[in-house]
């Protein structure tokens, strides 16, 4: 398996790396430009609001806030400098009923606070001015990114499926030959060894989950428009995927599997009092860990890359020379982290799918005939 993984990386990911590094250069420009403006604005606001504290704090750059802002969801998609893509906002509340409008309707209020038609937005969260509860089904940055990922998945794999029909029995070509090794990898190295001869039943789910995570991760690594959202690093997505796994296990699990969880055969009744809760806990914990792993890995990748950039501005605030000096180190480190994140993008998709596949395999395992 390791040999296959390394072969895969040699062939495909390094060519991808080259492409993405080009985007990376764009990211540098995109990020370095708007930031000083942002901090200047911030400084002027602060000057206006708290003139007393400004003195030596002028132009202070809050790295934590910036990073968390980037990791979190947004109601509009910041593209380059002043260019922002407005996204539809869909709200439902008992007070106002269903309300759909574009995020550009929100006028900049005082600073970060923005309001429109009785709605108030604070740090990306929309609330009613009156304070009553509200359901937010907006197409946020992550939802838009989700649609892009889904669209990409549909486009890529429907195209491939078509070329499999038109080039029946022939060697793969183009996009097909790019992704066929990965499809075969999922089939031969993930599903077959862990599930056994019934693997075919699970292939659609495993492939969809694998490529959803993989494409989502890669899109998250692209710093400009179609990518850049922290989709797979947003807890809701790993939560949903892990729930799918849990529900699937519950649906497919056979008597043998349940028997081992509820009452492990061959274990005294008294020990079962301890063992059964542990087994039940493990049953829920497995998908839970899947969720945490994906969420933490992808978020951490984003946080680290952003943290290295923040260093530039933190030092730049002290002196311009220090800022330029640190920027060289930061960029080098970020390049390194970016390469690592490319690996992680594949690895997390692989690990998530592999573990799911193992859980499926154990859930449908027939009792061994002794």
């Amino acid at each position, binding site marked *: 398996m390791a040999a296959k993984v390394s072969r895969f990386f040699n062939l495909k990911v390094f060519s991808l790396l080259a492409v993405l590094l080009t985007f990376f250069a764009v990211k540098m420009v995109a990020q370095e430009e708007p930031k000083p403006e942002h901090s200047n604005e911030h400084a002027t606001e602060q000057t206006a609001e708290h003139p007393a504290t400004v003195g030596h704090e002028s132009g202070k750059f809050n790295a934590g806030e910036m990073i*968390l802002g980037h990791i979190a969801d947004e109601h509009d998609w910041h593209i380059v400098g002043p260019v922002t893509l407005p996204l539809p906002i869909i709200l439902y509340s008992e007070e106002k009923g269903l309300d759909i409008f574009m995020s550009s309707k929100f006028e900049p209020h005082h600073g970060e606070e923005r309001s429109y038609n009785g709605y108030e937005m604070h740090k990306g969260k929309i609330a009613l001015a009156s304070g009553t509860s509200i359901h937010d089904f907006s197409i946020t940055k992550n939802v838009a990114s989700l649609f892009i990922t889904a669209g990409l998945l*549909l486009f890529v794999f*429907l195209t491939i*499926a078509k070329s*499999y029909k038109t080039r029946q029995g022939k060697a793969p070509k183009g996009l097909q030959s790019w992704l*066929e090794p990965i499809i075969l990898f999922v089939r031969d190295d993930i599903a077959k060894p862990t599930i056994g001869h019934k693997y075919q039943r699970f292939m659609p789910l495993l492939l*969809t989950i694998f490529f959803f995570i993989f494409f989502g991760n890669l899109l998250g690594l692209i710093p400009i428009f179609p990518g850049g959202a922290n989709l797979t690093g947003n807890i809701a997505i790993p939560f*949903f995927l892990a729930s799918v796994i849990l529900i699937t296990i519950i649906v497919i699990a056979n008597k043998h599997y349940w028997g081992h969880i509820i009452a492990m055969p061959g274990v005294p009744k008294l020990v079962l009092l301890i063992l059964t809760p542990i087994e039940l806990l493990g049953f829920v914990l497995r998908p839970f860990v899947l969720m945490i792993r994906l969420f933490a890995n992808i978020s951490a990748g984003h946080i680290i890359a952003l943290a290295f950039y923040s260093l530039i501005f933190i030092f730049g605030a002290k002196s311009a020379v220090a800022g330029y000096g640190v920027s060289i180190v930061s960029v080098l480190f970020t390049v390194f982290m970016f390469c690592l994140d490319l690996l992680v993008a594949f690895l997390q998709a692989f690990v998530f799918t592999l573990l799911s596949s193992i859980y499926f395999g154990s859930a449908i395992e027939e009792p061994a005939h002794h």
Partner: protein
Amino acid sequence: MDLIKPDLGLLFWMLITFGIVLYILGKYAWKPILKALSEREDAITEALDKAEEAKKQMANMQAENEKLLAQARAEREAILRDAKEMKESIIAQAKTSADVEGKKMIANAKENIEREKLAAIHDLKNQVASYSIEIAEQLVRKKLESSKEQEELVNKAINNFHLN
């Protein structure tokens, strides 16, 4: 805490999107792709098997050819050997039969010679006897003019015979 609290809106959209993607890809992408892949694999395996079989057949044929060739060679050898043997045996047979025939002819000749000799001797005896009788007759005619002489002659003749 916002970071680790799943957002309901995103969950809702994810449910819908993932469901649609899973359904469409499952029906129109994964199924034909996996089918095509396994079909191609089967075709490749089959082709390889066939090639292997052809190779085996070829090897078999070659072995058979070789066997046939060896058989033919052995047969030729056997035929040659047989012919040689036959030649030798014919020669030997001819020799022995010639020998026997010769001996037989020699024996026959000897027998003939013996017989001829005996016949000749017999003839000679008869001739001699008849000459003797003739002589005797003449003598007797002449001598028996006197009885004394006759007697004498007879005695003499008897004595002669006796001596013989």
